[in-house]
């Protein structure tokens, strides 16, 4: 029987009612009395030296409050980077300054040059058009390999070159890996591009900066996944505002997918300008601005080699990746191709020797940072693609090759520095085989062929490291922050509970799933629990939501705080029941003395805590409110197996997804419906990456896919009904809920299965093609089939962001 309450039940998402009926409170819904509006004048060239800016005419236009340029920010800090990666040479990465408004140079199309604050958005925009800027064009650095060649134009004049870092992992394994590859019975090599993506949350970014003259306090309302992180980064590094004078509020946020983790110039601008103008300042991004200012995702160019022995055991993996950083280092950018990518290169397999080399490169493009999965999709894609290619070269079944190399004993220490606590990879593969009806594939292929279509099956596994992460570990790896989470559980006098969490919900459904945990622990109705998040003024210091960490880390903090509450409540109950607190049991919202029929209700105890007339005041304080911080002992390691079936139209190269199945192991599951929804959304984004989405620059650094006319988002009609299953559960061993996290799995696991399926279909049609770079648009597939040259297709070139024909 499915449960109807508590852990494992699937109550509908309570927040959806307000989201779907127009009652949400998004940042753009926030209007502060007297606010002015800012319009940013952005660079329309990729690279250039600003020779002059004349704001005189703009400043005199109707409604203009003030015009700002880089000069106004000379005394202000640089937008900081939150992670320092150390290169193979032992030196820290090259870290350029990132000004709020351009200083001297513009470095990507969309780089803000000046900002006009005016009474209305239209006046600000009119005046921005009247600003006269002279820019001396410089050659655009777009191609990553050309960017690191000798004598290349530098994106940052004060850096040595365009190489942010050259990272080797594990450097000590390097020679052994080289040798294993040399000695291998078989080596499969694959060059590929992991295409650049635009996150495209439904809600564009918005910021409202407020400064109160009477108190010198600042408030920033912003579309963020982690308001405390913004408060720390912006307050301490950019504007010099102590945290107790700065409140950051991220109210309802309409999707983030990573791109709303980072601290952006516009947030600092609005906060700074609010004081400078003595007026609240609001900015709402247009969709066009979002394309050229939200951090992009992925953008790797990789060569991977997989070595196998004569029995087809994996003996070594070696990769070389060029990772695009864009023009500046966004908050987490350096960590994505390194610690979130290299550490995953073992995948689900017993590969004893692994060496990962990553060169991070500055280019005249929008900064690149974490996007749903962040590094892990890139790792999974190359590994699962090269395994498929190896199976084909060796003439063996790709599923059997995977099974043969599965890790089966846990805990398992990989050669890339992480320890998987639990997992059962054969079980998810068995489950996949069942739910995807793999045995029926041949019959379905025949049906497709009868219609003149080529059908392909792609299967792959994935592992991800999420629930990030142990603070001491990430500190050693270069993180400039801890990655714990926090919660305050406040029990009110009449028994209702408010949970203040540092986790931030922007589509994940925390307001529904977190109360399920509390309800389970105490035995009360979920409606008695309210989740508060997103405001530094009333939630404890939290690190926010990303990396599938909310339930694993934030949920664990909440459990710890709730345990403290329960322990204290038991003492109060013991007093009321005149028993020893060790004899008190809490069940179904009632405290009882073990082995007796004596009991008091949850509400009696909470009331006693706040009306402490009959209360052990000498032993315990009144009130019932506890805070806990939880620092995870390890990452969590969700895993799974995915299968995709496609049809390819041999005449046009058009790919359609006919079936998609996902068997995931997320450990324990709090709300299966929400988990399925997360997987569905993740698969849609993964399919988007595999078939449709392509953020593309031309060689001048102009963004070609700058709107929905050219940037293809997945739509419902592009997707089949998914079959998802999360009944394979190996609970996480190191957090109190045994949960692993599910937010990114779909986006990590699905691209390789789509591409594997298309390649399989092409082979069935007699086109012996090894690889096509994502997105597998009809044009690219057709070109591959016919041997024609296609836009951006071919072996991995330095310019991953290509698209120009």
């Amino acid at each position, binding site marked *: 029987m499915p449960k109807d309450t508590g852990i494992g039940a699937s109550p509908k998402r309570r927040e959806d009612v307000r989201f779907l009926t127009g009652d949400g409170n998004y940042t753009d819904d926030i209007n502060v009395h007297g606010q002015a509006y800012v319009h940013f004048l952005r660079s329309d060239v990729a690279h250039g030296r600003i020779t002059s800016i004349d704001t005189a005419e703009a400043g005199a236009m109707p409604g203009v409050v003030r015009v700002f340029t880089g000069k106004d920010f000379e005394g202000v800090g640089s937008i900081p980077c939150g992670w320092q990666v150390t290169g193979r040479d032992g030196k820290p990465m090259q870290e350029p300054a990132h000004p709020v408004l351009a200083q001297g140079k513009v470095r990507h199309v969309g780089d803000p040059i000046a900002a006009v604050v005016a009474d209305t958005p239209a006046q600000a925009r009119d005046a921005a058009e009247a600003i006269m800027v002279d820019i001396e064009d410089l050659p655009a650095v777009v191609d990553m390999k050309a960017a690191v060649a000798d004598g290349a134009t530098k994106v940052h004049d004060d850096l040595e070159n365009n190489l942010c870092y050259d990272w080797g992992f594990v450097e000590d394994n390097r020679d052994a890996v080289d040798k294993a590859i040399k000695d291998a019975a078989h080596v499969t090599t694959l060059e590929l591009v992991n295409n650049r993506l635009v996150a495209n949350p439904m809600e564009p970014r918005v910021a409202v900066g407020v400064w109160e003259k009477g108190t010198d306090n600042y408030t920033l309302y912003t579309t963020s996944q982690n308001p405390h992180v913004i408060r720390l980064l912006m307050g301490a590094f950019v504007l010099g505002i102590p945290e107790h004078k700065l409140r950051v509020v991220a109210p309802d946020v309409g999707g983030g997918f990573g791109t709303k983790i980072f601290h952006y110039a516009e947030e600092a601008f609005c906060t700074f300008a609010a004081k400078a103008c003595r007026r609240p300042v609001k900015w709402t991004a247009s969709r*066009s601005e979002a394309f050229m200012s939200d951090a992009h995702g992925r953008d790797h160019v990789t060569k991977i080699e997989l070595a196998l022995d004569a029995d087809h055991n994996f003996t070594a993996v070696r990769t070389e990746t060029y990772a695009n950083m864009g023009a500046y280092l966004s908050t987490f950018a350096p960590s994505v191709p390194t610690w979130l990518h290299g550490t995953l290169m073992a995948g689900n397999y017993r590969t004893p020797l692994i060496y990962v080399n990553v060169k991070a490169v500055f280019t005249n493009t929008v900064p690149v940072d974490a996007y749903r999965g962040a590094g892990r999709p890139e790792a999974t894609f190359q590994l699962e693609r090269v395994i498929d290619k190896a199976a084909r070269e060796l003439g063996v079944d790709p599923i059997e090759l995977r099974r043969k190399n599965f890790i089966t004993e846990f805990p398992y220490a990989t050669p890339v520095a992480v320890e998987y606590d639990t997992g059962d990879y054969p079980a998810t593969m068995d489950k996949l085989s069942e739910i995807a009806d793999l045995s029926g594939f041949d019959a379905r292929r025949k049906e497709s062929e009868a219609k003149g279509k080529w059908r392909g099956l792609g299967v792959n596994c994935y592992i991800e490291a999420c629930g990030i992460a142990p603070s001491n570990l990430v500190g050693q790896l270069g993180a400039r922050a801890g990655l714990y989470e926090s919660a305050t559980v406040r029990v009110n006098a009449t028994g209702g509970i408010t949970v203040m969490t540092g986790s931030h919900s922007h589509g994940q459904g925390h307001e529904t799933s977190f109360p399920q945990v509390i309800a389970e622990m105490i035995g009360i109705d979920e409606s008695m629990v309210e989740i508060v998040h997103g405001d530094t003024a009333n939630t404890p210091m939290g690190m926010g939501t990303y990396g599938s960490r909310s339930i694993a880390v934030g949920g664990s903090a909440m459990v710890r705080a709730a345990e403290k509450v329960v322990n204290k409540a038991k003492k109060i109950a013991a007093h009321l029941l005149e028993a020893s607190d060790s004899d008190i049991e809490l069940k179904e919202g009632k405290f009882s003395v073990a082995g007796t029929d004596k009991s008091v209700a949850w509400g009696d105890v909470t009331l006693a805590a706040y009306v402490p007339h009959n209360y052990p005041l000498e032993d315990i304080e009144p009130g019932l409110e506890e805070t806990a911080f939880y620092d995870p002992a390890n990452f969590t390691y969700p895993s799974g197996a995915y299968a995709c079936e496609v049809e390819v139209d041999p*005449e046009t190269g058009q790919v359609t997804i006919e079936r998609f199945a996902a068997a995931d192991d997320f450990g324990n599951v709090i709300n299966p419906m929400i988990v399925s929804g997360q997987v569905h959304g993740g698969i849609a984004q993964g399919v988007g990456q595999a078939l*449709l989405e*392509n953020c593309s620059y031309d060689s001048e650094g102009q963004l070609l896919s700058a709107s929905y*006319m050219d940037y*293809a988002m997945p739509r419902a009609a592009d997707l089949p009904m998914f079959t998802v299953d999360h009944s394979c559960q190996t609970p996480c061993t190191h957090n109190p809920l045994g949960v692993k996290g599910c937010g990114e799995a779909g986006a990590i696991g699905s691209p390789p299965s789509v591409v594997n399926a298309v390649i399989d279909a092409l082979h069935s049609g007699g086109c012996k093609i090894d690889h096509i770079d994502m997105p597998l648009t009809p*044009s690219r597939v057709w*070109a591959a089939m016919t041997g024609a040259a296609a*836009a951006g297709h071919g072996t991995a070139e330095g310019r991953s962001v290509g698209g120009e*024909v």
Partner: protein
Amino acid sequence: MYNFDFERPKSVADAVKALQTEEAQPLGGGQTLIPTLKQRLAMPSKLVSLAGIDEIKGVCKDDQNRLCIGGGTVHRVIAEKAMSEGFPGLTGLASKIGDPAVRNRGTIGGSLANNDPSACYPAAAMATGATIVTDRREIAADDYFKGLFETALEEGEIITEVKMPIPEASAYMKFEQPASRFPLVGVFVARFSDRVGVGVTGASESGVFRWTEAERALGSDFSADAVKGLSVPADGMISDLHGTAEYRAHLVGVMTRRAVAAAQ
């Protein structure tokens, strides 16, 4: 958007008058023009909405078996009426433009006036040999389309009606550009008792065109096989993020064959 004046006349005559102001521009359904204005890519002094002019709305059949579509008729109405008047090929075309919101506002006059190289109607207009009727004259489709976003229309000239000969059989095949869902290549095939028309949109750098070689072949044998050996040269085809010139040239052949098959 920049500021502009706005008029909403009730007759073509008043609209023509209103359009005499310098930099005045007609507004149809706004499905192309409004986004352009929002991006500040156009700066008309005045918009003259055609939405209040009843005389340019509606669909009927004339005595020469032509479908006469008012220039201000929206795509949804065209899709419905073309079906009941025995022109399913046009229904197929109009019902796949954009989404319901676009189809309930966008007009055929706006589409033909704009002449986007990827617009759908121009393919039908060319294939059927339509006549574009304006407030001042009648223009044959062959003379009307002048390349990308260029037409024979003069300043302030309003499309009041489009007369499309109704074919005995017709079909439109649209291969969608994955992002915009406009045609990457769209082919309209129309079979009449004495000729076959093939209009191709989305493909060429010089805009919509008639594939006369295919028309001839299909004129003597209206079957997909008849055009199997034919191809258009890649030279002069559009190359962009979504498809090379070669790919577009290839799709012209595939979509033509499929349209012929669908029109059987």
